[in-house]
């Protein structure tokens, strides 16, 4: 057994040593990428030198390493998918891929990977590709350092920058995606990591999870998207250290949670979103050490949210800190810092002696009659909130922070 392994290793190393390089350039013997792939053997490197290659429907059916030098342009002329990878172990890097063209019948992509594993798509630029990088039934691959830019104008006629469908163990990192329908889209994707990405100016969501379990996303930035991140019908998603910024508009939110179980949301920053986190029917979620800064609503919870714990967060200058539309609930809101809190701390232990009630009366009124929002910040509403605070009648008394912090938490340390 050991001998065969040794033999196999030797064979592989000798193969690698023999791996040839096929050079492609406009004036070379081999002037098209398709031609180069046809003539290459598995394990070869194809070096694509700078120039314009008007090619589409390039099928990569061997384990090749496609490397661009000096940003060669591969142009699909608006009516072709460009790369379709159907072999394991393919690497594509350093290419500028553009002009795939919209199609309503097929989800055309700049780079499509079909039922493959051990791939690496890195350091490419994709411009005006309908779908950027499309992975279906793939596993164990890396999509990194790509810049995907689209010109999406409406949701119906645009694709996603990075689209994952039925995948496992994928790492997508350091990508910059903008101008698509969704920045990064995951459907039936398990055990994957989305990290260090920047997703901005997308029409719908910066990052979108559907039916995906056991995934992590951290240290990403989601800025000025239709909505930052949507996580729907998924279990065990960890959301750490992300920034959700400026997702501002009438139907915008930083993070949407729908039917989520057992997630952990910590160390994120929510800055100037219409709704920081919008939660529907989500259970057993930990919200910890997040900063909610100048949002319209920091957290808006609908019915059916049970056993959630919101603790050690900073709520700073939000128009509304919390909105709930069901009176009874067993979620815990203890131990946060609220900038609107004006209680006292006689014991000097850093914890306020009076519970803080994050749901204001006006909030309750606005939930019932949305038109009342025109009275926001009027003296009457301030008086109303004040009198309700002194003696709560309408607002749910059990929604309270029983240990509000006196000082803002400092997360930098």
């Amino acid at each position, binding site marked *: 057994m050991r001998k065969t392994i040794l033999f196999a290793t030797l064979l592989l190393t000798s193969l690698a040593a023999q791996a040839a390089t096929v050079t492609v350039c406009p004036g070379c013997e081999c002037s098209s990428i398709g031609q180069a792939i046809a003539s290459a053997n598995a394990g070869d490197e194809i070096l694509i030198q700078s120039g314009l290659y008007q090619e589409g429907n390039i099928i990569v059916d061997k384990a090749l390493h496609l490397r661009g030098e000096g940003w060669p342009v591969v142009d699909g002329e608006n009516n072709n998918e460009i790369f379709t990878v159907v072999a394991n172990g393919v690497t594509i890097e350093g290419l500028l891929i553009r002009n795939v063209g919209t199609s309503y019948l097929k989800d055309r992509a700049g780079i499509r990977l079909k039922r493959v594993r051990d791939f690496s798509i890195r350091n490419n630029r994709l411009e005006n590709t309908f779908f950027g990088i499309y992975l279906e039934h793939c596993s164990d691959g890396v999509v990194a350092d790509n810049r995907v830019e689209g010109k999406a104008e409406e949701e119906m006629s645009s694709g996603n920058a990075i689209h994952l469908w039925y995948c496992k163990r994928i790492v997508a990192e350091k990508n910059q995606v903008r101008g698509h329908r969704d920045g990064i889209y995951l459907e039936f994707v398990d055990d994957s990591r989305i990290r260090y990405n920047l997703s901005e100016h997308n029409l719908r969501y910066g990052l979108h999870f559907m039916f995906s379990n056991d995934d992590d996303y951290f240290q990403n930035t989601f800025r000025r998207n239709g909505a930052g991140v949507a996580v729907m019908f998924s279990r065990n998603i960890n959301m750490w250290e992300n920034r959700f910024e400026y997702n501002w508009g*009438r139907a915008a939110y930083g993070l949407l949670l729908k039917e989520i179980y057992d997630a952990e949301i910590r160390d994120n920053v929510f800055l100037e979103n219409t709704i920081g986190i919008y939660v529907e029917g989500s259970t057993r979620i930990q919200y910890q050490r997040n900063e909610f800064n100048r949002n*319209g609503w920091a957290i808006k919870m609908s019915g059916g949210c049970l056993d959630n714990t919101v603790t050690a967060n900073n709520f700073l200058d939000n128009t509304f800190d919390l909105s709930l539309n069901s009176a009874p609930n067993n979620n815990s809101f203890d131990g946060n810092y609220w900038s609107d809190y004006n209680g006292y701390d006689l014991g000097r232990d850093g914890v306020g002696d009076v519970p803080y009630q994050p749901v204001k009366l006006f909030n309750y009124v606005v939930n019932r*009659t949305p038109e009342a929002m*025109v009275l*926001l*910040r009027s003296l009457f*509403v301030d008086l109303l909130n004040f009198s309700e605070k002194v003696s709560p009648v309408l607002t749910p008394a059990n929604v309270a922070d029983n240990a509000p912090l006196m000082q803002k938490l400092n997360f930098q340390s």
Partner: protein
Amino acid sequence: MFKILKYSFFDLTRSRWLYIYGAFYFLLTVSLLWLGGGLSKAIISLMNIILVLAPLIATMFGVMYYYNSREFTELLLAQPIRRSHIFFGQYLGVACSLAISLLLGVGLPFVLYGIFNSAEIWNFSMLLLVGLFLSFIFSAIAFFIALRNENRIKGFGLAILVWLFFAVIYDGLFLLALSLFSDYPLESFAIGASLFNPIDLSRILILLKLDISALMGYTGAVIQNFMGTLLGMACSLGVLVLWVVLPAWGIKWVAVRKDF
């Protein structure tokens, strides 16, 4: 008229209260800007204060000035000057001196803070403009009430009541109506009702500038479509002008007919 305006104005500049009023705004703005941090935040906090304080002070000042300068007014009435000129002169003197206090008190700190290099300049100008309008509107209303009432106590009471009505009671009734008729589409009603209260109208104009419209959902969209456009903006400013003109016309109407 200009002579009387000038006289009233200089008479008022000798008044301590005007300086206190200006100094209050100055200190408030300075502390909001340098201690609170951030232009946008300071503008929102100032809006809350100006919307309440500017009408209140204008009302009080207008009534007070009219009653206090009563003897001088009688002296002027004996001269060959048109009545409307006398009262307009006095009214404009009060309104202008209040406006200048506000302008200097709030404007100076912002200029020192560097508002001209900031994107918030339009929001800030809106705030000042609205503050000026409120000073003019409520001092006109105050003069009108004082002219109608010889009894000082009654005049004061009525003026305070009018202020209270616009600042608080109106919104209460508004909210009551909204929740009573919440089954009906209320967007047009909400716009209409806010036009009838200069304080509400001012507040919404600033909030729209500060992009709070996104919070208001469908209602916000309707209001933004109406007031956010150039036409809507012109329309709402027109209504504010009307709010100045109507009580001023009332002053003239009463002054001409009144038997002193």
